[in-house]
């Protein structure tokens, strides 16, 4: 299947979940996304790195996908970006819970959720995703390691600097270069 046929398929499945609470469609989404979500959860070192907590992240994320399916809007975000943002928030909340934070505040209370996102032309959405996919190969391995550590391992730039034993400024410039490579530079273009 082509990329856009795959996208159409996921959109059909999530629509079936939203409209009819279709469990078969949900099962298919689970089979596709759960292994990615588990890898995402496992890549955070420490407590989240344990299989049990990673399973908790997968479970909670997928249940939220089920519950919020009707809020998903293909014109606002592609499905994988929507699921990624749910997983990101869920991983933070589960880690906070295990760290015994004395607080009822959850990530969804203060992070912008994908549902709040501005409608964005689906075509433009698609273009961005294609640009990112097409340019990731041209990002140097050093730069790509920074992105990996930020997005998957959930490390701050100073944590990355300490871990890789390089100056913070080097981390920052590598991330900036990677972003430029991926053409994530809207603001500069507008100013």
């Amino acid at each position: 299947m082509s990329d856009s046929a795959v996208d159409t398929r996921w959109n059909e499945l999530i629509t079936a979940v939203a409209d009819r609470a279709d469990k078969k469609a949900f099962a298919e989404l689970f089979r596709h996304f759960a292994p990615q979500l588990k890898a995402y959860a496992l890549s955070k070192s420490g407590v989240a790195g344990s299989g049990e907590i990673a399973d908790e992240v997968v479970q909670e994320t997928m249940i939220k996908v089920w519950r919020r399916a009707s809020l998903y809007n293909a014109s606002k975000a592609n499905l994988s970006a929507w699921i990624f943002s749910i997983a990101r928030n869920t991983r933070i909340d589960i880690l906070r819970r295990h760290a015994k934070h004395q607080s009822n505040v959850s990530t969804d209370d203060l992070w912008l959720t994908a549902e709040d996102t501005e409608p964005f032309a689906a075509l433009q959405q698609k273009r961005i995703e294609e640009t990112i996919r097409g340019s990731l190969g041209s990002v140097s391995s050093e730069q790509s390691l920074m992105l990996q550590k930020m997005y998957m391992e959930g490390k701050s730039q100073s944590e990355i600097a300490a871990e890789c034993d390089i100056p913070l400024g080097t981390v920052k410039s590598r991330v900036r270069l990677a972003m430029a490579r991926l053409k994530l530079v809207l603001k500069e273009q507008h100013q």
Partner: protein
Amino acid sequence: MIAYHPDKLLLADYSAGNMSFGPALCVTAHLEHCQLCHRELQEMTTLGAVLMEQQRAADVSPELFERVMQCIAKEDVTASQHYVARGKRTALDNFVPKDLQSISWSGFGETLKSHELDVGDSEHLVSLIRMRRGGAVPKHTHRGQEITLVLQGGFSDASGSYRVGDFIECNREIDHQPVANQNEDCFCLTSRSAPVKFTGPFMRALNPFQRG
């Protein structure tokens, strides 16, 4: 038109989820005003999704699949009734009453008042600040990171003038004296990792007591 935006790397950290709740609330409040940053955020979130998809997938046990299917089978209402989008509510509405005048303010005399918010962040002091119209905040510098987001009105300092939605990040190098606009009170959201340090001749004495 919003003139002051969060740094791209800060936005990237936000999109990756690597941010404490205090600074994150300030970024969200900016995003709710700024379409440009909002679109950048969407791009960065898409990057996160592509990276997630491109890593080596992990094995998911059949038991986990069964458990999730059992959970959703128990859900007694249709999916759409379960969760309500925030809609017109902003993230700040979760922590602050809509009418900023009705808040119980404390401290600092008439010119500068603050109201501390509990956003579940033990590493940052997050507060609403009210500057009286035309009022000047004592000259100060910062011991850590301070983020200010203008919610209503505006203020200026030696580096510029700031309006609703502007996102101002200060660090220890900046010594400034904000002055609120003459025509109306200025309300800001601030998050700071360490207390500010007053540097004016008489203000030094205040420091030991100063949290914000």
